[in-house]
């Protein structure tokens, strides 16, 4: 039996972060939670009001900025502790939560290098998006409700990345799912939006079942659910099948939350929510929870190379699949949604091949440029919506066919979106180039002579799988450049298709919407410096890699050995990546050379890609409909006829018996009543005398 967390805590030597600002770690979670409570109270009290409340404007983004400031303090403390920081810092291990049988759980939060990176992304990008929301949602009747949900989301997300055990992580996991559901269906008066929220919730439930099963299996075989206890168990267990089973179940959970095949279906529909929500939840943070979970469970996945290969394979397939769909979408947010699914696939490749740093690096850079893309798209939609409103037209403000030439009206947004597009396409020296290249290079580096390459997935040797994953990754990189360029050109270049009257009303949003976009643009430009390759003499090499080494280094080495590519190969790979990016952008420009008609005049696009392979219809026919039929059958036969029938029958029996007895007792015969009375008195006296 591995030691419990509290035993570890008592036995632990003094931690280098003891007595520093790190003891305020719980405050980090409580700040956004406080914001959610205050904003929720305002929303409840001022229900019919459509005006935005100054308290909400102050508290909503305020708690996030405070949390970000605290996160920076924590980061400084960790930097101060330096290399002495090898174990996670634990707070709250003595606050009991669940005690059942042999299971003892506490509300322990843990801070280590991986959590720190996530916390900085969540609070940093979160702050920018909260500020942006002040401008974006200013005229919305649900202003306070919106910020209450958004604060709640951040609180749950922080629990997710700071929890020191799988169950506490799961609390955050479900909490962000709830916040996501509430925000997707934020404009719930349109039934389509409410349905999208439900869809996200139900599809995620399938993944959550995997998470619960993984925890049950882990508990029954390892006897621990703390992250700290897992390596001890693995050391005794070796490569037992149960380890692979736990890892594969966790993969199912991650596929649900991070929108991988086959559970990605909810994410494109999740775009029904307000655009800043898409930026924060469905691009930058929540959907990366799966990547975080794999990295967090690195020891587990490293002991199960088959599961790791499965992660990489699922990621590669998803990346390619979603990228092809994004080629033919007309809704600007749907392009970005499928792009997100595709980029999440990239991150899965990274963490799947054991290059945990590369996966997390791409997570961070993706958070920068995808948040930027979504906020930019939000600015575009905002401008288009107001322009059409001004022109009294009911056209679709999100459709690329209605845009065109927006660069002249929204110059800052257009510039920033171009930067982000170059980044996601993988043009150096922007953030996306470095992270994507590192994932691809790590994949190829592990294709020979590593434990990962000698494992096999479904009979296919690991080296073949890895080479396949690399090839798919490269093709996806090409497609990414194509569809992003297509989106950029249709939206911001060429002739405008919005219509004369609407065009005059197109303009950039308020400064509070422009500023976060610009900040994210700077981060997109500079994000690559977080983890520079040794190849290019640009600055300090592998900062993030060294930072994460105490958390993921061991697992990374266990899977990949001392995998390293020869210098010449690396140069060729970088050249190839740049060539692919430029070729893709050229293709994108070439594809968009013909002018398109505005949506209202264009024929409906019925191509297979525009219909997203009809995946929704297939899922409806082969999964949803059979399940629904089964549920109806169960409801009609087992529940209504069986259980309800039995309950009704037993109820009728009771009534009949009571009626028979009552009729006998109360028949209106006073003589009989007196006998009952006398008999009762005798019994009473007898009891008094005997007792």
């Amino acid at each position, binding site marked *: 039996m591995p030691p419990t967390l509290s035993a570890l805590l008592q036995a632990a030597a003094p931690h280098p972060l003891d007595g520093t600002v790190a003891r305020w770690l719980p405050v980090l979670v409580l700040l956004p939670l406080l914001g959610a409570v205050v904003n929720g109270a305002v929303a409840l009290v001022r229900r019919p009001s459509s005006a935005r409340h100054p308290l909400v404007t102050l508290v909503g983004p305020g708690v996030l900025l405070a949390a970000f400031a605290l996160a920076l303090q924590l980061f400084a403390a960790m930097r101060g502790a330096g290399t002495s920081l090898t174990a996670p810092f634990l707070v709250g291990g003595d606050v009991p939560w669940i005690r059942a049988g042999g299971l003892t759980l506490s509300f322990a939060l843990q801070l280590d290098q991986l959590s720190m990176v996530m916390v900085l992304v969540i609070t940093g990008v979160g702050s920018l998006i909260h500020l942006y929301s002040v401008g974006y949602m200013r005229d919305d009747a649900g202003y306070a409700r919106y910020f209450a949900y958004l604060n709640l989301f951040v609180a749950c997300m922080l629990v997710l990345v700071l929890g020191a055990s799988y169950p506490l992580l799961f609390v955050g996991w479900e909490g962000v799912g709830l916040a996501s559901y509430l925000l997707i269906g934020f404009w719930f008066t349109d039934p389509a939006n409410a349905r999208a929220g439900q869809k996200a919730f139900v599809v995620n439930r399938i993944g959550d079942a995997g998470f619960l099963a993984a925890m049950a299996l882990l508990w029954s075989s390892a006897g621990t659910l703390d992250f700290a206890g897992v390596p001890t168990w693995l050391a005794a267990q070796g490569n037992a099948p149960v380890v692979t089973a736990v890892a594969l179940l966790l993969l199912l959970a991650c596929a649900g939350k991070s929108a991988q095949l086959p559970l990605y279906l909810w994410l494109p529909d999740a775009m029904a929510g307000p655009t800043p929500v898409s930026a924060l939840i469905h691009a930058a943070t929540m959907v990366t929870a799966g990547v975080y979970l794999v990295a967090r469970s690195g020891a587990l996945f490293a002991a199960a190379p088959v599961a790791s290969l499965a992660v990489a394979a699922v990621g590669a397939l998803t990346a390619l699949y979603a990228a092809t769909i994004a080629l033919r979408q007309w809704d600007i947010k749907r392009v970005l949604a499928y792009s997100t699914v595709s980029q999440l696939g990239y991150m899965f490749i990274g963490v799947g091949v054991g290059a945990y740093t590369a996966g997390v690096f791409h997570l961070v850079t993706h958070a920068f440029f995808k948040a930027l893309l979504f906020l930019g798209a939000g600015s575009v939609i905002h401008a288009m919506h107001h322009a059409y409103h001004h022109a009294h037209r009911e056209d679709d403000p999100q459709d690329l066919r209605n845009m065109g030439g927006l660069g002249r009206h929204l110059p800052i947004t257009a510039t920033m979106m171009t930067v982000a597009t170059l980044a996601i396409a993988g043009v150096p020296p922007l953030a996306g180039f470095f992270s994507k290249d590192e994932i691809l290079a790590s994949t190829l580096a592990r294709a020979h002579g590593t434990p990962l390459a000698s494992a096999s997935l479904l009979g296919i040797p690991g080296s073949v799988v890895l080479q396949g994953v690399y090839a798919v990754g490269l093709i996806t990189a090409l497609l990414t450049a194509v569809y992003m360029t297509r989106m950029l050109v249709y939206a911001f270049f060429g002739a405008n298709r919005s219509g004369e009257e609407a065009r005059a009303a197109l303009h950039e949003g308020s400064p509070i919407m422009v500023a976060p976009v610009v900040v994210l643009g700077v981060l997109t430009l500079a994000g690559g410096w977080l983890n520079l390759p040794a190849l290019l003499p640009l600055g300090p090499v592998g900062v993030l890699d060294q930072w994460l080494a105490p958390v993921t280094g061991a697992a990374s080495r266990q899977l990949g050995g001392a995998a390293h590519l020869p210098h010449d190969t690396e140069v060729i790979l970088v050249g190839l990546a740049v060539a692919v990016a430029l070729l893709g952008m050229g293709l994108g420009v070439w594809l968009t050379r013909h002018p398109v008609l505005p949506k209202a005049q264009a024929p409906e696009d019925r191509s297979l890609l525009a219909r997203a392979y009809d995946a929704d219809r297939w899922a409806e026919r082969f999964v949803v409909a059979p399940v629904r039929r089964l549920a109806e059958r169960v409801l009609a036969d087992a529940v209504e006829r069986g259980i309800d029938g039995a309950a009704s029958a037993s109820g009728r029996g009771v009534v009949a018996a009571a009626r028979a007895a009552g009729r006998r007792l109360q*028949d*209106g015969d*006073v*003589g009989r009543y*007196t006998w009952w009375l*006398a008999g009762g008195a005798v019994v009473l006296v007898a009891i008094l005398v005997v007792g």
Partner: protein
Amino acid sequence: MITESLVVSALLFAIGVVGVLTRRNAIILFMCVELMLNAVNLSFVALARLHGVAGHVFVVMVMTIAAAEAAVGLALVISVFRHFGTVDLPSLRSLRE
């Protein structure tokens, strides 16, 4: 003296109970109930010699309540007679199906 009083009281009470149980006329029933109350009164008065004045107080109380009860009860009997034309209890069984 107390023993004799209690014996008389018990006899009176038993007569009352038997009357209530066996007679069919509502007014006779009432009189039997009064008999039982007065049997209890007799016990109270007798036992007051042993236990103090509280017994007397109870008797006054019982008599008051008995008077009220008789008033209500007789009113009911009159109503019953007006409605059914009889005060014979076994024939007042319209509750039965």
